[in-house]
């Protein structure tokens, strides 16, 4: 089993050095090889589990309740602007 570590790391937004890519490629392939034994089990007639305690349709009223203040919610943020989280721009003028 070959795993494209660079691609997976990009999907997962993980910055990796090229040494790390090599190291993780080997380790992840070991794990994938290990879990291959799952294929020994016939699941052709089995449904996948969704939730273990069989709860269904858990809903609640959509009510406004006291919550964190703006100040509390922003307290741990590195960069704040006029009561908002400040983030890098993702949209540009074309």
């Amino acid at each position, binding site marked *: 089993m070959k795993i494209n570590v660079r691609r997976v790391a990009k*999907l997962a937004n993980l910055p990796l050095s090229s040494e790390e890519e090599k190291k993780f490629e080997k380790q992840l392939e*070991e794990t994938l090889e290990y879990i291959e*034994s*799952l294929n020994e089990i016939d*699941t052709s007639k089995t449904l996948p589990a969704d939730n273990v*305690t069989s709860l269904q349709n858990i809903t609640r009223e959509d009510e406004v309740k006291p919550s964190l203040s703006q100040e509390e919610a922003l307290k*741990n943020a590195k960069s704040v602007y006029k009561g908002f989280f400040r983030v890098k721009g993702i949209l540009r003028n074309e």
Partner: protein
Amino acid sequence: MNNLNNLTAKQAREGLKEKKFSSLELTKACLERIKKTDNKLNSFVTVGEEEAFENARRSDNLISGKEDKPLLGIPIAVKDNFSTKGIRTTASSKVLDNYIPPFDSTVVRKLKEAGAVIIGKTNMDAWAHGSSTETSDYGTTKNPWNTQRLPGGSSGGSAAAVAADQCVVAIGSETAGSIRQPASWCGVVGLKPTYGRVSRYGVVAMGSSLDSPGPITKTVEDSSLILKVLAGKDDLDATTSPLPAGDYTESLMANIKNLKIGVSSEYFIEGIDKEVESAIKKAIKKLEGLGARIENIKLFDPNYAIDVYTIIQRSEVSSNLARYDAIRYGFGRDRFGDEAKRRIMLGTYALSSGYYDQYYKKAQKVRTIIIDDFKKAFDKVDVIVAPTSPSLALPIGASKESTMFGELSDVLVEPSSIAGLSGINIPVGFSRSNLPIGMQIIGPQFAEEIVLQTAFTYEQETLSEAWRNLKPKL
């Protein structure tokens, strides 16, 4: 009064009520024990001395005013993945090195409402990824019985803190073994409640379909006392069960007459430590002597649970850890340790287009087989008894030899976690090398009462055994 920190919650509660000592004295005793021993053990990431003293003083005032709450004035340590308002919460990862939660997890809120004094946050595998505490970014915790050995994990700090009497009670969380396995290696009682019995709200999310918070304690009675405080539906966690929680202290009795106990040879796996095997078989004989009926049952090979757990857990991790973007709190993704990176990537891979059916869906199908297998077993027996860990506490460094270390050492606790069952580890003795041996009792979902009762019966009947008087030498 000396060594107040050695007390159980029940003893502490009685002593506080009778004014034999104050909560401040009790809290001081724990904090002094931490000061004296934590340079050897490293059970704690953060100790909140000032807040603890303040809360202890407040508790003493309430006690003077005849207030009665189940944990009033009792010092408790909490695993560092539970959000604590105003107290740093890192999940033992440098990504959260500076994170001060603006809110309490439901577990912490309930502990506070019950009057508990939170003394600090315990060390763990970073993000709870592991069974050793060796993946912690704040150093490995050492096993109090032998500081060359691992405490187990991921709730290793909580288990070590209880074993070393650094606190009266500690809180852990289990995804697959993270309460029972460290409790086994440290010789304490660790209860993994049914999935959905205790709220996950405000716990740093790991495997969301598996995570179960629970108590690590010195006695089974304390375990039931804490479960009674924590259990119940929580509007902030939709997976908590609407089934009413039991009165776990009221229903606790030492009687297992005619209880049907299942024993499965699949759980005495190849390579199991011989001393562990013989200690558990001896304990099963004792249970039989107490009136239980032992039935041999066949369970699905636990080795497949490793594969299922690896896929499901990694997949859920990759999704849960996607939120750490350094925008709202914490540091950037470059600070993830190797174990977290491996798990995020494996999960991302297992969920990615083209591989989803082969890995995630396949694992969820085998999960169904494991769930059904336990259901069938519980048609025949009330509880299942087995070793908790196939080995004694392993030496420091052991986890670094295998990327599958956690899975291999948790092989006997993973199947019941995957099926969302209740379970407990209780100590049953020591090896010749003076390391604790633990037995697990697994029950059906929401059968905490019968699990606790079985554990309590065993504990009460073995109280006079010599090993019960052993204390770690620190």
